[in-house]
């Protein structure tokens, strides 16, 4: 899509920071799925069923509040090369 732009995916347990294209109308659930697609099944095992993935902005202390799952990229005001954490909700991040 023409209005896609790259963000940085910092997936829990993954050793690599990855570049993921997102669109402004992506929900956080869609962003999480897009990010997980590059890590899960290639390097990471799939998360256990019933454990949703959440998104939060990357901060120095790894303790930012998660974005609501249905919030869009535009509403979250994510910009090019912003870094987000993708983590399993029930795991300590």
């Amino acid at each position, binding site marked *: 899509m023409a209005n896609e732009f790259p963000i*940085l995916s*910092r997936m829990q347990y993954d*050793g690599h*920071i*990855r*570049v993921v294209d997102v669109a402004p109308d992506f929900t956080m659930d869609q962003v999480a799925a897009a990010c997980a697609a590059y890590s899960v099944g*290639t*390097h990471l095992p799939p998360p256990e069923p019933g454990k949703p993935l959440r998104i939060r902005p990357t901060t120095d202390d790894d303790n930012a509040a998660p974005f609501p799952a249905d919030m869009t990229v535009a509403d979250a005001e994510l910009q090019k*090369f912003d870094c987000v954490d993708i983590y399993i909700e029930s795991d300590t991040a």
Partner: protein
Amino acid sequence: MPRLERSEWYDFARDTNWTPRYVDEQEIFPPEMSDPYGIPVSEWETFDEPYKVSYREYVRIQREKDAGAYSVRTALAHSDYYEEADPAYLSALKMHYGSISLSEYAACHADERMVRFGRAPSMRNMATFGMLDEMRHGQIHLWFAHALAKKDRQFDWAHQAHHTQNWAVVAGRHALDDVMMTRDAPTTSLMLNFAFETGLTNVQMIGLSRDAANMDDYTFSNLITSIQSDEARHAQIGTPVIQIMIRNGKKAEAQQAVDIAFWRIWRVFAILVGISMDYQIPLAKRDRSFKEYMREFVMTQYERQLTDVGLDRPWYWDIFLDDIENHHHCQQGGIWSWRPTVWWNPSGAVGPAEREWLEEKYPGWNDTYGKYYWDTIIQNIVEGHPEKTLATGMPMLCNMCQIPISNRPGEPWKARAYQVDYQDRRYSFCTSVCEWIFKVDPERYKHHHSIVDRMYSGEIDPPTMENVLLYMGSGVVSEGGKDAYDYAWADPYRAARSAAE
């Protein structure tokens, strides 16, 4: 035959200098090339190198070295060694030749700058020999690699690599351009001779030489040993420069230059040497682990050398120690997963015996790199889906070292992008050290675009993986990388699974 012993004329000849009368000194030696530190010429003239050699001696000694190195190669040229050699070991050679051959030639230019613009006549003299050394190193690498190119096209990268936009080459070229191609004469000496050559090359040359000898590759082992004997001489150019700078109140400047260069070279060096030693050399032939070599030649020797010349350990020493435990393991996992992007065939090389060795040398390896990278990879191979082991998408590349931003997987959460916004552009770095280097002089680095930046600037258009590979030379100079053993290293896991079923 000379009538005098060298010691009777050396100092007199070496220290000969002149005071120009027809042009201004600053026209011959502009400060931006010769000395941005404002140190008096009389101080530079105290430059005293520990290792002295006359031109007559140099020619004789170097001729003997070349005769030895080239004759060994000629004698072994008709053997079937390279046809029958371990494929992962051949990949280590391809990594080396592609990375190093034209880097040596580039270093010749760095020494040329010291020859032309050094204020100390003795420094100019020593750099002349260094220049000839590096010319030799470039030529001998290319000569040796050229014979292999007709056997395997991937060896053509020995000459082609530096002319491509391959990500690994961009990383090497960015580091070397920063450290030795674009600095004034004394700073080049600090960065190249002291930080790079004194600090790090012993690990590479001695360690690789031993591993090559264990692999019965005496051609390569002899080549490397021969090169390192030159290195031991011209690396010493940096020490008197540091001493003069400290004596003239420029310790902070010397420290910063050395610390920048050491980190820049370390980040690419760990890929080239660490992966070779810990993954490409077959387990039974490994002399020591990369960490053990680093402990002896860097953590002990370099730290002592810093103290001896009057400098301090870099501020980031603890980060560096942690990097020794992790950086090359991250890059091994990444390079293997993104193997079509490189010009050699990486080996997974994590069979059960290898993992046991890795765990012994790097405690915790199995709970991190094993569990969060290689277990999933192995499962895909064992289940008959090796295509799932090819990584998709792009890793984010550090805007300084140009290497994937990564750190130990698992817990705790270590991988992190350190980001700086400068003049409406965001820069991302792998560590606080690469970030610090940028902040020291952002104007110097701000223009460069990583491969990822080029995907989004329109330079790589369209930014598909297929096009990125072509842009980087994969499929152009040669085919990109495949697993060196065609996944045979995973056979024990297949067998274990079959037995369990």
